[in-house]
């Protein structure tokens, strides 16, 4: 039987959720033995492949580019996990929402004594109005809250999914913890 194909992605997050996945320490190698890691910041594959079984997505959706990637990942993935509070609720990236994108950019680039002060726009993805959680855009199959979710939580969730035990998942999770 083919091994399940696993992918992990960062959108607008702090990488803490990915670090928590690495905090599985040696269990990472056990996990790696049971899946094919086909796409991740940790590996060198540059294009999101077809027919992925499980994708863990960290971070909120902050640009049109993020949204585009999320949608194409959804199309190519059976089971999509919102990994961590940013993906689940918007969390920290969404703190800019109350200010408005324009105010934030003006503050960071124009209102501090920088040389050649201007807002960078050339050949760059522009920030959307708001940073929003994944389920605003696509169907999410599992939500793993936590900032970040603990390594044990991520490990149990992934093992259960690999073993097809998703119905009786009892995870120790909580927002912000």
């Amino acid at each position, binding site marked *: 039987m083919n091994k399940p194909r696993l992918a992990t*992605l*960062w*959108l*607008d*997050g*702090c*990488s*803490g*959720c*990915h*670090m*928590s996945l*690495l*905090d599985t*320490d*040696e269990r*990472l*190698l056990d996990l*790696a033995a049971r899946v094919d*890691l086909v796409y991740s*910041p*940790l*590996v*060198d*594959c*540059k*294009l999101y492949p077809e027919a992925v079984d499980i994708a863990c997505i960290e*971070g909120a959706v*902050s*640009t049109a580019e*993020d949204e585009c990637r999320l949608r194409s990942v959804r199309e190519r993935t059976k089971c999509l996990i919102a990994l961590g509070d940013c993906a689940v609720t918007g*969390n*920290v*990236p969404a*703190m*800019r929402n*109350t*200010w408005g994108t324009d*105010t*934030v950019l003006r*503050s*960071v*680039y124009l209102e*501090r004594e*920088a*040389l*050649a002060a*201007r807002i*960078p*726009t*050339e*050949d*760059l*993805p522009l*920030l959307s109005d708001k*940073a929003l959680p994944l389920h605003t855009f696509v169907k999410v199959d599992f939500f793993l809250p936590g*900032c*970040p979710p*603990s*390594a044990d939580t991520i490990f149990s969730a992934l093992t259960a999914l690999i073993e097809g035990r998703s119905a009786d998942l009892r995870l120790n999770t909580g927002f912000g913890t």
Partner: protein
Amino acid sequence: MEQQITIEPVTRIEGHAKISLFLNDSGQVADARFQVTQIRGFEKFVEGRPFFEMPSLTARTCGICPVSHELASAKACDQLLAVTIPETAKNLRRLLNWGQLIQSHALSFFYLSAPDLLLGMDHPPETRHFLGIAAQDPQFARDGIRLRQFGQQVIERLAGRRIHPSWVVPGGVNTPLSEETRTDLLNDIPEVKNLALSHLQRFKQSLEQYQEYIEHFACFPSLYLALTNDANTLEHYDGRLRIIDQQGTLLKDSSSPTEYASWIGEAIEPWSYLKFPYYVPHGYPDGMYRVGPLARLNIAARCGTELADRELDAFRALQAGPIQSSFHYHYARLIEILYAVEMIENLLSDPAITDQRVRATAGVNNTEAVGMMEAPRGTLIHHYKVSNDGLIQWANLIIATGHNNLAMHRGILQAAQRYLGHGELHEGLLNRIEAVIRAFDPCLACSTHAVGHMPLDVQLIGPDGTRLKHIRR
């Protein structure tokens, strides 16, 4: 024929970026841009929040070095309170910081860069990653995991959790260290010290085979910036900001933290969200400087621990004056891991470390403060202004990776000229350009206070501005 080179995403770095390479009329690479493509706006959205939230809030800029942000932030907050924190609290913060230094350096070396070094730049990309190493040299992978784990365990045992702990507070830390934790950590020291030493030896023995990279991976003179203490030994938590020139001569030694603003300027380019800090007296872009492990080892007179000092002597023997190749960031990182293990042992061996007084309390007694410390990737600066009620009115964060922005540009240009100017383009050549970036270990999560999935887009642009090449892996 329209062609464009794209490496997308840049993998095995920590952030969100793309690269453009500009050709001149004769087809040589004339200019390079390293574009950081995301921004979160921490400086703005923290406005109005109470200052005591700042350590935990700014930790969320980065999951790799949250402790650095917590400490820079807490140091600024200590000054808002106008308190001197208890000596034990200071030492506990130091321990936490060295734990983080070890895990972050281990991540950079073992997980992100070792695939290039051990498997080779031209190894097939499908298996050129940490799990590929695990398949080929399981012991190497396990050692890397163990070193990173030890660093994370230092944090977990002191602060309750590995990522974004809320133990560091304005005025000190939340809870003292128990005798039991002290013993547990000390018990692990001999094992990790051996690991640190043996991988440093192994790296040194392999240096000869990397000569080509040493000469072309951002190898040029520059200024260097880091904190040092009064004894002029390696310092990550406290001390004065110091900048040296390419010969190693001292240019500036700050007497107060707020002084940074008069000699570190920030420039903005329209094509990157990451600003370009520069040394003001030398102007932009000539005031390019480097920070991080290489800068720290170039600036400090000694490490201050036995084994690391021995290693520092060997490191210094590589070249007269400051070490110039950014490839040696790897080497410097391994020396710092060893140093951090020795320092953790030293501090834990002092019974005063379990003292119960670990926090000073006070109200707001200052309305402006600057907190600085050495994050794994270099000097981190948090600058706050607060209202009399302690609500943040203004904040500025200058981040390690930002400091290195100009030098990373120069480094990419140098490597591109070496590897892409002529002949056939192939994946391994592009990987060499990525590898230059990995040597700096940029943390783009921190630097734009945002992180993405780390795409690196490389495009070749002709003299008339058209895109010439496009390669995807």
